[in-house]
């Protein structure tokens, strides 16, 4: 590196602090730090005396990687082992709290099914090889002297951010690849697109703690959402006096729905019509002003009168009027759309209709705030979508890639059968998976590189959701213990060696990812370090677990647009709707290898260790099945057999089969357990965004004539008149604890 002069702006870009010009104006390049000097400061980050005080547990800050919310954690370390994770109280995301997936992070780390050595396909089998051999193979395929065509290299990952993202971008640039697919089965891509268009901010802050009414069209804020703990802490405040009311409209009860004051079942795909029916009632009957809206929007509102909405949705006019009345009387409110609304052929338009409610009700700016602009776009979160899965599958079909890297996601498990992913992947000459586990995707790869766990590795992360309107955190992930397996490597380290193999000069000077991160911190703009010395800033950041970044001020716009929602059509041969619901716990299937979470009763059905299908008692009666009996759920793409759980939290036309189980690989706890509803999804995509329509699959169900028992917690689902959970009305609560329902 010596003698090679790097221009300041390039330097900042290498270090991830590249941004728009205005942001960096006035930020002085640290005068005393060069890359060389930064390197000299590197000390072993595993100095044992720092970690080991016999008998005493010490807490170190890091970042949770169990989902992409980016919660701050404290790891309790004793005798060099991490024993327990707690929330980091300083975190803006989770304020010291953690969900069950975060708590189970230690079982991902200590999982007995981790892969400990690189594996290379020789003949039909994946066999363990040395890192030298693995890297030599990589070099042969994508190294500097290889004949690889960069256009034919793709990277397929889960959501990512921070300096790992910066390095990966640099690598893909060095190869000449423009194909980075970012995929999450559980995502909010449609809402983002709508928010960007209508509010000018893809991820505005939702402040239901300020709302008097939360109306959710299937948004599972407390469960499978973009930041479950963040939203749950807010929900705690929302429910404190003056207690806000919560109405949830969805096909099958989510954890969020289970907490609603009013839970309203709905046929998936009719939410848009319902939203317009509510708007129609608000404008025509309740005096809301629509004169500011375009003629086109007003025309559309007129079209969906309550009688029509009632006919389409099967929800009575009185009920629609009741909800509209609540929206009027409880202000400000917050109306949100979730996967069941987004995941339809016209999910974008339905979500736009839901968002339009916020505009008409005047919630924008009150319970929906601007999230500001993160000034370092290189590090900003790349949030996953399922559109990337679909375009990846289609590119595979056209044989566009010679080399594909997988990391942080398991598409072979979560992709629907119709995409033919496994067959098409067979035609890709070289597939590399960076993973801790031999999951379904790793199993079909040609080279598997074993990763360090998130509790052993370095990283930085920028949360996509959460934080305040003024600042957001770049959170730091630091190793909480020495790596368990010598032959596993960090993600950043691997990408760095790939960069070196490409001979990219800016990166050749770094011994490892840690050295790179140290340098990145040394080059942090002074506006962020607050003038602290390099070492003090680094250590302070490690202790706090985060670097607070001032956001560029943003402002919400209001651009309501017309979004016609198509009429819901019945499908006589497949009369039921499939709800492949997501749960806090198994998530998209990534936590099926955690024994604690397999044995944690599902929040709704209380089932453990296996899959189940939720149906309404009336549906069950028609089919002649009771709890535990096997049914067959069949779509045009295939069928699954699964035991039923019967309860009244499902629409009679819906069968809900939670995703997450049904693994064919993925270790002893996951493999061969339960079914995977995602496999039988029909070929339905959202028209505008190209997202996979998760709730767009029609199925038929039949009695599989196999009596069984569900493995679940609790013998009684009824309190049998005893005072176990006593309930009082909100009126009583208001009388005794005050507040009323209006925050204004």
């Amino acid at each position, binding site marked *: 590196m010596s003698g090679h002069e790097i221009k300041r702006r390039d330097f900042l870009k290498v270090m991830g602090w590249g941004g728009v010009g205005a942001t960096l104006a006035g930020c002085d390049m640290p005068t005393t730090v060069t890359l060389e000097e930064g390197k000299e400061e590197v000390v072993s980050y595993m100095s044992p005396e720092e970690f080991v005080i016999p008998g005493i547990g010490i807490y170190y800050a890091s970042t949770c990687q169990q989902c992409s919310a980016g919660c701050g954690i404290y790891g309790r370390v004793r005798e060099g082992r991490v024993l327990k994770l707690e929330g980091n109280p300083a975190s803006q995301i989770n304020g010291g709290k953690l969900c069950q997936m975060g708590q189970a992070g230690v079982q991902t780390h200590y999982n007995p099914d981790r892969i400990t050595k690189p594996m290379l396909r020789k003949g039909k089998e994946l066999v363990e090889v040395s890192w030298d051999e693995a890297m030599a193979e990589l070099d042969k395929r994508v190294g500097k002297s290889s004949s690889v065509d960069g256009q034919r290299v793709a990277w397929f990952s889960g959501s990512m951010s921070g300096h790992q993202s910066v390095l990966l971008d640099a690598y893909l640039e060095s190869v000449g690849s423009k194909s980075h697919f970012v995929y999450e089965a559980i995502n909010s891509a449609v809402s983002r697109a709508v928010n960007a268009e209508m509010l000018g901010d893809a991820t505005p802050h939702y402040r239901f703690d300020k709302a008097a009414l939360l109306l959710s069209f299937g948004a599972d804020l*407390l469960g499978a959402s973009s930041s479950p703990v963040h939203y749950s802490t807010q929900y705690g405040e929302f429910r404190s006096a003056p207690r806000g009311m919560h109405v949830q409209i969805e096909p099958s009860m989510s954890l969020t729905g289970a907490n609603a*004051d009013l839970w309203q079942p709905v046929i998936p795909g009719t939410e848009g019509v319902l939203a317009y029916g509510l708007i129609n009632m608000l404008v025509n009957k309740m005096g809301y002003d629509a004169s500011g809206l375009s003629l086109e929007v007003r025309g559309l509102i007129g079209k969906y009168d309550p009688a029509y909405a009632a006919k389409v949705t099967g929800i009575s006019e009185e009920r629609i009027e009741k909800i509209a009345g609540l929206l009027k009387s409880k202000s400000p409110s917050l109306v949100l759309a979730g996967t069941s609304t987004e995941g339809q052929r016209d999910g974008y338009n339905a979500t736009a209709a839901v968002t339009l409610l916020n505009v008409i009700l005047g919630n924008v700016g009150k319970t929906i705030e601007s999230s500001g602009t993160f000034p370092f776009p290189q590090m900003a979160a790349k949030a996953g979508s399922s559109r990337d899965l679909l375009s990846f599958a289609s590119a595979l079909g056209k044989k566009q890639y010679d080399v594909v890297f997988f990391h942080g996601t398991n598409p072979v498990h979560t992709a629907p059968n119709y995409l033919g992913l496994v067959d098409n992947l067979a035609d890709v000459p070289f597939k590399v998976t960076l993973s801790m586990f031999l999951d379904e995707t790793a199993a079909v790869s040609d080279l598997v590189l074993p990763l360090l766990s998130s509790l052993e590795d370095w990283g930085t992360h920028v949360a996509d959701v959460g934080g305040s309107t003024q600042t957001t955190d770049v959170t730091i992930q630091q190793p909480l213990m020495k790596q368990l397996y010598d032959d596993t490597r960090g993600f950043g380290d691997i990408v760095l060696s790939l960069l070196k193999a490409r001979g990219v000069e800016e990166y050749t000077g770094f011994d490892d990812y840690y050295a790179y991160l140290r340098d990145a911190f040394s080059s942090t703009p002074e506006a962020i370090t607050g003038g602290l010395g390099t070492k003090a800033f680094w250590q302070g950041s490690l202790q706090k677990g985060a670097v607070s970044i001032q956001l560029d001020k943003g402002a919400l716009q209001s651009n309501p647009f017309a979004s016609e929602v198509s009429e819901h059509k019945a499908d006589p041969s497949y009369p039921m709707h499939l709800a492949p619901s997501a749960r806090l716990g198994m998530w998209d299937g990534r936590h099926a290898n955690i024994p604690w979470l397999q044995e944690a009763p599902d929040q709704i059905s209380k089932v453990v260790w296996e899959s189940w299908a939720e149906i309404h008692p009336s549906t069950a009666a028609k089919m002649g099945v009771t709890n535990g009996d096997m049914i067959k759920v069949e779509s045009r793409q295939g069928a699954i057999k699964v035991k039923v759980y019967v309860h009244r939290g499902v629409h009679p036309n819906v069968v809900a089969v939670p995703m997450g189980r049904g693994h064919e690989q993925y270790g002893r706890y996951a493999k061969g357990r339960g079914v995977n509803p995602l496999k039988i999804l029909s070929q339905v995509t959202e028209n505008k965004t190209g997202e996979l329509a998760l709730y767009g699959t029609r199925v038929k169900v039949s009695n599989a004539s196999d009596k069984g028992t569900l493995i679940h917690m609790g013998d009684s689902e009824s309190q049998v008149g005893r005072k176990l959970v006593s309930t*009082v009305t909100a009126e009583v609560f208001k009388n005794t604890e005050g507040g009323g329902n209006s925050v204004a």
Partner: protein
Amino acid sequence: MSLSNLLNDWTRYRQGIEEGGFHDYEHIFGMAIDLNKCIGCNACSIACYAENNLAVVGEEKFAKDQGMHWLRIERYWDEPDLGADDQEFQEHGASFLPMMCQQCNAATCEPVCPVAATYHTPDGLNAQVYNRCIGSRYCSNNCPYRLRYFNFYSYYETSWPAPLDQQLNPDLSVRDKGVMEKCTFCIQRIRVAKDTAQREERELVDGEFTTACAQTCPTSAIQFGDLQDPNSKVSQLWKQYQVKLGTTEQSKQNKELRGYRVFESLNTEPCVMYLDRVREV
């Protein structure tokens, strides 16, 4: 039971703090759980598994009700207080109830133990001495809350295949078969806090430590503290909601005020107060 025990006058243990009872307790650790805030997410339960070396028993044993969840989230579908139960849909959602050992001050499990393996500590805790337990299971039979869990097998043989065992908390034991176990209010955390306070020659400070479940609860529905310390958050909550120890039926000035103890009419004297779930109907 010794003769002196028999001759002792135990009636003061039937008196509330305000009536002058319980003076020989150093602390009475208790909880306040707000069911208006509990969302049933299960974070507390997994935190408990992580903190207390709870065994994973697997599906076959779980099916026989042998799950070791010291803290479980019960979920009920009916709402007796909201009247009729014949709606077509679950319109008010679910009723969640986090249940852990209620640390009863008049615990029904204690007097039936033939070997005094379960007894009351000066911290007001219902303790379980694993070394003394002979596995008669009388205590769990006698627990009206069904919150005691028996080691029918040596779960450690299968529950933590290496390197999962490296996660085990060295501050407490792993239990072997034949032993009863249950929620301890994270007694290992209490010990550390008390030892630290003693070393620093001071009293325990409210909030300087808490249980694993209360620490992780995303909505802060669970509050933990010393009921004997009138200034602790938990005491304040009990006072605010007019819930008292030493009674089988709460008599409140304001009858509508929330707050009750589960099965308190059984005179078990539970130290966990629940604040009623709230629904707008």
